[in-house]
């Protein structure tokens, strides 16, 4: 088999070999040779250290052949726009620092299967025109970016037109407090099958931003104190995000214009403000929101124009509004959720209701259970008259929890006049759902 010397063609060779099933012995021999050849490539490495002989990462990248490893020892390297256009492994030993001096990108990756790990990346350029990032990955596949600390940058990790790849255990942070002049922590544009896991992002514009990302898996990340959204999901179908924590973000988490998104086991906490939401849904269809915990957000779940979303087994506690659902949302199902001591349970802007509430636990429910089946005998109406009053006269917010308001609410619940007549939970649970 000619042309099977490099590891890059290894795959195609193997495929070719498998096609010719006749000479098994020959195959084995060839495979062994190939294996040895690729091994020798992996072991080849270039060492960069401040003491020399190679003192610059750019230089090392030029010297190294495809498939080789560059080992960078601790020190500060003032370099930017380091272009990696072949398969390389960049290993930081002892947390070496690459400082861009406020100019350009730091690493630009334009080859498949590049591995970057153990670096400290600081000070990219800032611009209103170009999205300078600590690591830019373009048109590549199979890369691994892990255990890096990215600090004081414009954009953190920027993926464009990639396929696959793993972004793991990185720490991204910046300190700009203005929305317009800060960049995103992990930015994905037009990518397929990315895995973003175990990262921590802080103080960026959007913690994790996805646009046209297909089948993204976002798990175990912590996104906190970002100027806008902790996670911003746009036009990205079929992804899932699980076990993430979104804390104290300017506007919470936004999921927009996407289908088939799975949102499970996440934590949405302390997202406060006039337009802050634990989770904002806009034009979402056929998705799942399960086993999440919403704690002390101004609005836990805000929904505009979403259809056919399953909201199940979430724990929604001590938020201003548990659910704010606009009338253009339809066929969404709220089942088996715990609504605990939210100032308001559900808010809506129309007397009609196209959504479905059933079998939730509402701590504000005052009904009884004579049949002893754990389900209240009278339906619960989660939209209170007071929330309608506030809609019209926001100043009356100061009367919250007053006896007079409670009496009004009670009267309205018994005989609904102003609140949506069809919005109720037919089977409210008497006990919290575990």
């Amino acid at each position, binding site marked *: 088999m000619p042309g099977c010397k490099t590891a890059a063609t290894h795959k195609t060779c193997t495929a070719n070999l498998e096609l010719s099933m006749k000479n098994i012995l020959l195959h084995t021999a060839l495979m062994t040779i190939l294996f040895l050849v690729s091994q020798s490539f992996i072991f080849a490495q270039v060492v960069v250290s401040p003491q020399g002989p190679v003192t610059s990462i750019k230089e090392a990248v030029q010297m190294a052949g495809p498939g080789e490893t560059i080992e960078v020892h601790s020190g500060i390297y003032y370099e930017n726009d380091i272009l990696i256009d072949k398969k390389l492994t960049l290993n930081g030993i002892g947390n070496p620092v690459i400082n861009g001096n406020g100019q350009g990108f730091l690493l630009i990756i334009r080859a498949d299967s590049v591995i970057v790990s153990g670096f400290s990346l600081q000070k990219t350029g800032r611009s209103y025109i170009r999205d300078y990032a600590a690591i830019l990955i373009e048109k590549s596949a199979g890369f691994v970016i892990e255990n890096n600390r990215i600090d004081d940058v414009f954009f953190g990790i920027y993926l464009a037109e990639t396929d696959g790849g793993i972004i793991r255990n990185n720490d991204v942070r910046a300190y700009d407090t203005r929305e317009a002049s800060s960049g995103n922590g992990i930015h994905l544009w037009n990518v397929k099958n990315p895995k973003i896991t175990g990262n921590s992002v802080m103080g960026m514009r959007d913690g994790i931003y996805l646009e046209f990302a297909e089948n993204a898996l976002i798990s175990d990340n912590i996104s906190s104190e970002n100027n806008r959204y902790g996670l911003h999901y746009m036009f990205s179908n079929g992804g899932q995000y699980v076990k993430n924590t979104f804390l104290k973000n300017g506007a919470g988490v936004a999921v927009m214009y996407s289908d088939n998104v799975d949102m499970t086991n996440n934590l949405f906490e302390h997202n*406060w*403000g*006039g337009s*802050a939401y634990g989770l904002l849904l806009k034009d979402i269809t056929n998705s799942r929101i399960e086993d999440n915990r919403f704690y*002390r*957000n*101004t*609005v836990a779940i805000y929904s505009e124009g979403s259809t056919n979303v399953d909201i199940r087994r979430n724990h929604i*506690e*001590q*938020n*201003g*509004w548990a659910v704010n659902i606009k009338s253009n949302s339809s066929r969404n199902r709220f089942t088996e959720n715990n609504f*605990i*001591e939210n*100032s*308001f349970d559900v808010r809506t802007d129309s007397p009609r209701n196209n959504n479905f509430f059933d079998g939730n636990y509402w*701590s504000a429910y005052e009904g009884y259970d004579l049949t002893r089946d754990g389900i209240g005998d009278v339906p619960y109406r989660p939209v209170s008259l007071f929330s309608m*009053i506030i809609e*019209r*006269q*926001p*100043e*009356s*917010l*100061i*009367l*919250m*929890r*007053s*006896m*007079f*308001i*409670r*009496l009004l609410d009670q009267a309205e619940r018994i005989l609904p006049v102003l609140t949506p007549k069809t919005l109720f939970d037919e089977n409210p649970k008497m006990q*919290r759902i575990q």
Partner: protein
Amino acid sequence: MKLLSHIIKTEWKSLLRGKWVIGYTLIFLILTDTLLRFGGGGPETLLSLSNVMLLFIPLVGMIYGILYIYQSREFVELLLTQPIDRKVLYWGLFLGISTPLMAAFIIGSLLPLAWHGILALDGGSAALVLGLGGMLTLIFVSLGFVFGLMFYDDRIKGFGFTIVIWLFLAILYDGLVLMLVFLFGDYPLEQFVIVVSMLNPIDLARILVMLEFDISALMGYTGAVFNRFFGQNTGLVTASGMLMVWLVIPTWLGLRIFRKKDF
């Protein structure tokens, strides 16, 4: 000072003999324990407790204050024949009956909270609710004293007045505020509603409870005045300060009437 503590102690003894205060403690003990057993955990219980507190403590405090003035008329008049400073006597009587009432609420609610482990969990919120309950007890006992002294000979009028005042402050006042908000809805009203709420001690306590439990909803309101009031410590400080004023004015008024009164 010795005299003051002597009067207070005598009051305590007679209260304990009456067993009334013990019953009051038991009511809160059973109530809080039941709430904790059947109403789920921390914030839910504390909110229910604060609802009860906001509604009943003013009523009980005021009725108890006025009742005391009427019942111990002979005792007070007897003491007044002795060479005792009226100021000392007034403070002795006031503290002698308001502190056991306050203690009854605080201990009665505190014990179940402690043995259900809520104190460790939501200590700050619990302290706030209990503290506010104590404060409201003081305020409304002193209001009861004022009405008792004002209508010293006309008991029916005195009781009637107390009930009406309670009904007004606890329920009707907020209805009135809501009506005004709707009447003048076209004008900027934020400052107005804040000032108006400051004039009612029950509303003040309610706002403090709200600041503790509903801050996330309050932050959803975009008006600048509200945001400043609720968002920073302004609301907390102003409301607590106004509660103090509400304590000082009735006690001072009661003292004034007591000193000038020809018994």
